């Protein structure tokens, strides 16, 4: 549905998008993940024919954005970061206007407006002025605007930014509901959002493609299995038999693998990997003590989402204040 090859967008003094290639298949929801200024919006603007690429190609439904922009525009619904609303218009009027602009035929205009309004649950504010709507409603009117002509492709630029938690949940549900009918690309800098909504993730940073993978692969890589580092020594300076230790620890519930890392001065450092979603640290500690060994150290080395993200995107780790403390709002230091 969408094919991007070697896309580069250069502004006067910097490169916003640097040689990015990816493709999106029909019906997929793809998350565009990256810190602010990574080039997400620029890429989306190229796809929507708002900006021409400096080099490389972008095709939507087999139409090139430079050669056949009209065909591309007909097939794309676009919600920019701030919804493009006219405050002096009523919701219905606005949706009708956008519908006409997008080429919805006259006969089906009223029906399309109703459908879009219903899907985005703005039916109850239809005859209100947009200037009187709350931020959450405005966002939904923006979404309704994007789907008014039933486009093949939906491009949503940070659809949940600036909303309160309740509105974020509503908007996410809404996007999920739209998934079946449209191919969706949405950008965000909030990791959990991608996990909840998307099948595939494209991570970009500083204009470069960092990773593209399915959400399952990425999340298991990111957070699924816990890895625990432990260091044990034999009691009273007694030696340890490595096979014994390995065998004992592998029996602990939830452990999938035990690897030897280092052994010296009678001490043994091991990496213990858990199975998906298991918390093995308490059991591990008990097992070591019950076996009569000294537990010198035990800590989780499984990276938090934020750490992995920062690792992938190449930001210095020191910027992250508390690696494990963030889940809801996004990662530390990431907001505008």
């Amino acid at each position, binding site marked *: 549905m969408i094919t991007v090859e070697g896309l580069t967008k250069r502004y006067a003094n910097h490169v916003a998008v640097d040689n990015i290639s990816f493709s999106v298949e029909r019906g997929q929801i793809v998350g565009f993940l990256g810190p602010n200024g990574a080039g997400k919006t620029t890429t989306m603007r190229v796809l929507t024919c708002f900006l*021409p690429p400096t080099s490389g190609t972008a095709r939507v439904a087999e139409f090139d954005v430079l050669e056949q922009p009209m065909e591309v525009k007909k097939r794309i619904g676009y919600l920019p970061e701030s919804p*493009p609303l*006219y405050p*002096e*218009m009523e919701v219905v009027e606005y949706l009708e206007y956008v519908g006409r602009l*997008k080429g919805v035929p006259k006969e089906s205009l009223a029906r399309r407006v109703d459908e879009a309004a219903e899907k985005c649950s703005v039916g109850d504010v239809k005859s209100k002025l947009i200037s009187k709507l709350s931020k959450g409603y405005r966002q939904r009117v923006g979404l309704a605007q994007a789907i008014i002509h039933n486009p093949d492709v939906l491009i949503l630029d940070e659809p949940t930014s600036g909303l309160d938690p309740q509105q974020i949940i509503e908007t996410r549900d809404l996007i999920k509901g739209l998934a079946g009918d449209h191919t969706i690309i949405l950008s965000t800098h909030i990791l959990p959002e991608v996990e909840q909504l998307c099948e595939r993730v494209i991570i970009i940073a500083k204009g470069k493609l960092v990773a593209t993978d399915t959400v399952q692969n990425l999340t298991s890589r990111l957070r699924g299995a816990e890895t625990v580092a432990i260091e044990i020594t034999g009691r009273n300076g007694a030696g340890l038999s490595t096979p014994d230790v390995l065998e004992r620890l592998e029996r602990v519930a939830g452990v999938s693998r035990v690897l030897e890392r280092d052994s010296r001065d009678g001490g043994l450092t091991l990496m213990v990997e858990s199975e998906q979603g298991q918390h093995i640290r308490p059991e591990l500690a008990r097992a070591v003590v019950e076996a009569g060994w000294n537990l010198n150290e035990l800590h989780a080395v499984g990276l938090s989402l934020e750490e992995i993200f920062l690792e992938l995107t190449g930001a210095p780790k020191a910027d992250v204040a508390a690696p494990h403390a963030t889940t809801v709002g996004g990662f530390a230091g990431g907001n505008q």
Partner: protein
Amino acid sequence: MNTLTILRKELNSYFRSPIAYGVMFFFAVIAGYFFYVYTVSFVQYSIQSSMTGQSAPMSVNDQMIRPLLSNLAVIGLFFIPIITMRLFAEEKRSGTFELLATSPVRDMEIILGKWLAAVVLYAAMLGISFVSMATLFAYGKPDWRPLLVGYLGLLLQGGCLLAIGTYISSCTRNQIVAAVGTFSVLLMLWVIDWVGSFQDTPLAKATAYLSVTQHFDSFSKGVLDAKDVLYYASMIFIGLFLTARSLESLRWRA
């Protein structure tokens, strides 16, 4: 089709905001004042001439309609920046321009729709002054043809200045900058022939040709001159063409 959609939306926006009413109200007040002044002086002049017995030739067309039309042309100059300032600047500031630019609509359709909306509002504004002109027909028998030609001239001049205003509005995201810029350019186009008004040099001729008010003279006399129509038509074309360039450059730079 798309042009019509945009024209309708723009007119709607004008009449939802105080702009349309403000422009029409103040134009009506000022145009009405001028009409009153000319009527009074015309009446006094006719009384004087009848008292002294010297029957100087009196003509409503020459002594009222013609100067009034010239005045309206100048008053229009002050209102046009207000009409055009928001056309593109507002869309660029609020981000709705992104909606227009990503819709399957040609740039020229957007530009024509917006410019035509401005022309319609300007015409509605002129229409108010037409009411006072019409009262002349109730009390006298002026020739209506020069009046019609005069209004056509006003409309053409307005269209040309509105096209310039549309262009300037597309260059900025600030409405005030657009208004001030447009006003300065229009003022310049009005007075540009003054520099050579007492000379007969090529420069004087060139500046006289550029001046928008010079070309209105023949219209106010009731003369429909192809040369002047061509001037206004080409100015409209240039203004709208520059707007198209400006929108395009916006994409390459943005």
